[in-house]
C-alpha cells in the first residue's frame, strides 16, 4: 500500500488544569490516505476536536501534545526523541512553528469549523476574508485572489457570488456561511481538510445539501478529509473509513461498511443502536446507558466497562489496545475489546459484571423504573 498522506501514531494530548491532568487524547493511531474521507466519531467530550487540532499543532493552553508522532507526507509535524539527559525533547526534523504556519496550515491542511456563525469575522466582508486566505496560502496577487474567491463561492453554490463577495457574514444564512467556510478550505487547495462537525449547527435539510456538496467537490478535487462528527448517519453517508473514539482513545477502526455490518466493539454497537433510522420507531431506539466519565479520572481497565452491556469482571482489570481483529477491503479492522479472541485474557471465563443502577439521560419513551 502506498505511503499514507497522514500518519498519526500513539498521539497524546493533555490539558494541565488546576483540577488535574485531563488526558483528552490518549494514544490514538490512525492513517489518512489520499482521496479518502476518514471519520472520527464519538460522543462530545471524546477528544475528537482536540485530536484534530493536534494535527495542526493548534492545541490551546493549558493543552499540550505530550507524546506520539504525526507525519504528513513524510514530514514530521510532531515527534519526540530521547535527549542525551534522558528527557524527551522535540525531534530535530520536526517542523518549526514558522514552517507549520507558512507551509502546512491552510495550504496543506485546511479546516472547516463547527460553528459557521462564529467562525467568520463579523467585521470583515466574506469575500475579504476568503481573499486573505487565498492570497496567503496560494501566493496570488490581490486581483487574482479575488477572482479565485468569487469562483470558489460559485463553486460551493452561492448565488450571485460577485455581489455576495462584498457582503458581511451576518447577511448570510447558517448554511450559506458553512458553504463559505468550505469554499475557504477548498480555495487554499490543500491535500487534507479537517472538517470538525461542520454540519452539526445546521438543520437537517441544509446538512444534506452540504454533505452532497462535499461529496461532489471531494470527487472533483480529490482532497482527503478527516470528518469529525458524533453522527453515525453522517458517517454512513460520507466516510470511507471510520475511527470510533471513546474517552480519548480509538476503540474501533474499520472501513465504513465493516463498521456498520460487522461491528466489533460494544460501544460502536451502542452508538449505532442509538441512531434514529427509518426502519426503526422511536421506541426501538436504545440510548447508551449512563454518561461518559470525565477524561480526568478515566475508569480502570476498559474505559467503557461501566456502561458496557457485555462487561465482565476482566474488563475492570485489563486495558485493551486497539488490536487488529480481521482484515477487510485491504484495511485492517481494529477493535479494543477483550471479548475478541486475539486478546486471550480469559473473557469467556470471567463473571459478568453486576450492573450498578445508573442514572440514565432522559430516554424518549421514558418509564424506566423497574
Amino acid at each position: 500500500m502506498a505511503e499514507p498522506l497522514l500518519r498519526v501514531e500513539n498521539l497524546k494530548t493533555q490539558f494541565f488544569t488546576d483540577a488535574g491532568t485531563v488526558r483528552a487524547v490518549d494514544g490514538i493511531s490512525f492513517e489518512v490516505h489520499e482521496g479518502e474521507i476518514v471519520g472520527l466519531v464519538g460522543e462530545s467530550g471524546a477528544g475528537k476536536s482536540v485530536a484534530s487540532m493536534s494535527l495542526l499543532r493548534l492545541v490551546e493552553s493549558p493543552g499540550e501534545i505530550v507524546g506520539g508522532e504525526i507525519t504528513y507526507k513524510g514530514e514530521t509535524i510532531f515527534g519526540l526523541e530521547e535527549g542525551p539527559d534522558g528527557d524527551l525533547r522535540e525531534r530535530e526534523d520536526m517542523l518549526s512553528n514558522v514552517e507549520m504556519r507558512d507551509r502546512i496550515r491552510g495550504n496543506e491542511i485546511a479546516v472547516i469549523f463547527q460553528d459557521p456563525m462564529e467562525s467568520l469575522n463579523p467585521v470583515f466582508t466574506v469575500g475579504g476574508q476568503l481573499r486573505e486566505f487565498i492570497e496567503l496560502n496560494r501566493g496570488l496577487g490581490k486581483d487574482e485572489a479575488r477572482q479565485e474567491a468569487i469562483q470558489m463561492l460559485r463553486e460551493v453554490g452561492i448565488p450571485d457570488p460577485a455581489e455576495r463577495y462584498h457582503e458581511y457574514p451576518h447577511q448570510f444564512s447558517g448554511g450559506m456561511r458553512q458553504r463559505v467556510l468550505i469554499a475557504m478550505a477548498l480555495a487554499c487547495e490543500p491535500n487534507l481538510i479537517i472538517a470538525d462537525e461542520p454540519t452539526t449547527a445546521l438543520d437537517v435539510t441544509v446538512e444534506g445539501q452540504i454533505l452532497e456538496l462535499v461529496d461532489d467537490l471531494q470527487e472533483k478535487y480529490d482532497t482527503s478529509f478527516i470528518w469529525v462528527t458524533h453522527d453515525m448517519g453522517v458517517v454512513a453517508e460520507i466516510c470511507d473509513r471510520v475511527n470510533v473514539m471513546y474517552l480519548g482513545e480509538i476503540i474501533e477502526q474499520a472501513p465504513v461498511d465493516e463498521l456498520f455490518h460487522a461491528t466489533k466493539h460494544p460501544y460502536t454497537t451502542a452508538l449505532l443502536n442509538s441512531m434514529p433510522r427509518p426502519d426503526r420507531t422511536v421506541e426501538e431506539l436504545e440510548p447508551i446507558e449512563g454518561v461518559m466519565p470525565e477524561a480526568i479520572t478515566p475508569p480502570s481497565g476498559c474505559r467503557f466497562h461501566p456502561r458496557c452491556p457485555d462487561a465482565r469482571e476482566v474488563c475492570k482489570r485489563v486495558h485493551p489496545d486497539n488490536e487488529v481483529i480481521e482484515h477487510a477491503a485491504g484495511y485492517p479492522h481494529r477493535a479494543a475489546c477483550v471479548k475478541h479472541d486475539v486478546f486471550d485474557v480469559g473473557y469467556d471465563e470471567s463473571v459478568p459484571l453486576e450492573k450498578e443502577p445508573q442514572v440514565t439521560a432522559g430516554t424518549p419513551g421514558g418509564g424506566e423504573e423497574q
Partner: protein
Amino acid sequence: MGLLRYTIGRLIQAIPVLIGITVITFILANLAPGDPVRLMLQGQEVDQELIERVEQQYGLDRPIHERYATYMINLLQGDLGYSIHRDRPVTDLVIQRSGPTLMLVLSAYAFALATAIPLGILAATRRNEPTDHISRIVALIGVSTPSFWIGIMLILVFAIQLGVLPSSGLVYPWWGPDHYGYSGYPELIYQTIRHLLLPMIALGTLQMATLMRVERTQMIESLQGEYVKLARAYGVPERTILRKHAFQVAQLPIITIVGLNLSTALGGAVLIEYVFNINGLGRLLLEAIIGLDYQLIMGITVVIGTMFVVGVIITDISYAYVDPRVTYGDRD
C-alpha cells in the same frame, strides 16, 4: 446608504434628549429659594426699581411655562440669553470658551487612546504575566486618583520642582503666532503642546486607565473567538491576527465607552481648567456661579449637555461604520 439612514435616525432620536436637557436645566434654575434677582445682585445696594427692571428683562414676572417657551424660542435662534454680570450675550461667551474645553478634552482622549490601546493589548497578550499585573496596578491607581490631584502633582513636579513645563493657561493655535509674539508656526505648535501636556495627562489618566482595562478584556475575549482560531488554522501570522482579526472586533466596545465616558471627561474638564487656569467652559461655569449668573449657568449646562449628546452620536456612527451589523439593525 445604510450608514446615512442610521445617522439621520440617530440625530432624530437625539432631539427629545436635547429638549430634556433644557427642561432639566430650566427646572433646576427655578428651584432656587427666594427671589432670584436679589440672589443675583447679592451684596449690592438693591433698590426696588432695579429689581423690577431686571425681573422684566428676564421675564420673571410671567408664569414658568411661558418663560420656558420664550427660552426655547430664543434658543432655537441661537440665543442662550444674556449675562447680566458680563453684559454680553451668553452665546458669545460660550462659543469663545468652548474652544479651550474641546481642545483639552480631545487631547486628553488622544492621550488616553494612544496609551491605553497598546498597553491593553500588551496586557492581553501577556495575560497573568508581570506586564499584565503592572498594567492592572497602573489602571487601578488611574481610576482611584482624583484628576485634579494628578494635575496638582504634575504641577508640583514639572512646573515647580523641575520648572520644565508651564503650570497655567493654554496656547490656542487658532490665534496665530503673532498674538503670542512667537517667531512662527513651529514655535506656536511647540508652545501649544508644552502648555497642553500637563492638563492633558491629568484629564486623560482616568480615561486611559478605564480604556486600558476594557481593551485588555476585549482583546482576550476576541483572541478566543472562533474567527481567530480559523485564521490561525489558515496560517495567518500571529501579528496579523492581533492587529487585524482580533483587534477590529475588540475595538467595538471601546468606541462605545469613549462616547459614554465623554461625560466624565467634560465634568473633569471643570476641575482641570480650575487647576491649570484654563479659560474654558468649566471656568466660565465656576465664574458664573460666583455671581449666580442664571442665564449663563443655564447656557453652559445646555451647551455641555449638547456636546455630550453630539459626542455619543459621533461615536455611535463610528461604531456603525466599523461594525456592519449595526446599520442593518440585526444587532441586539
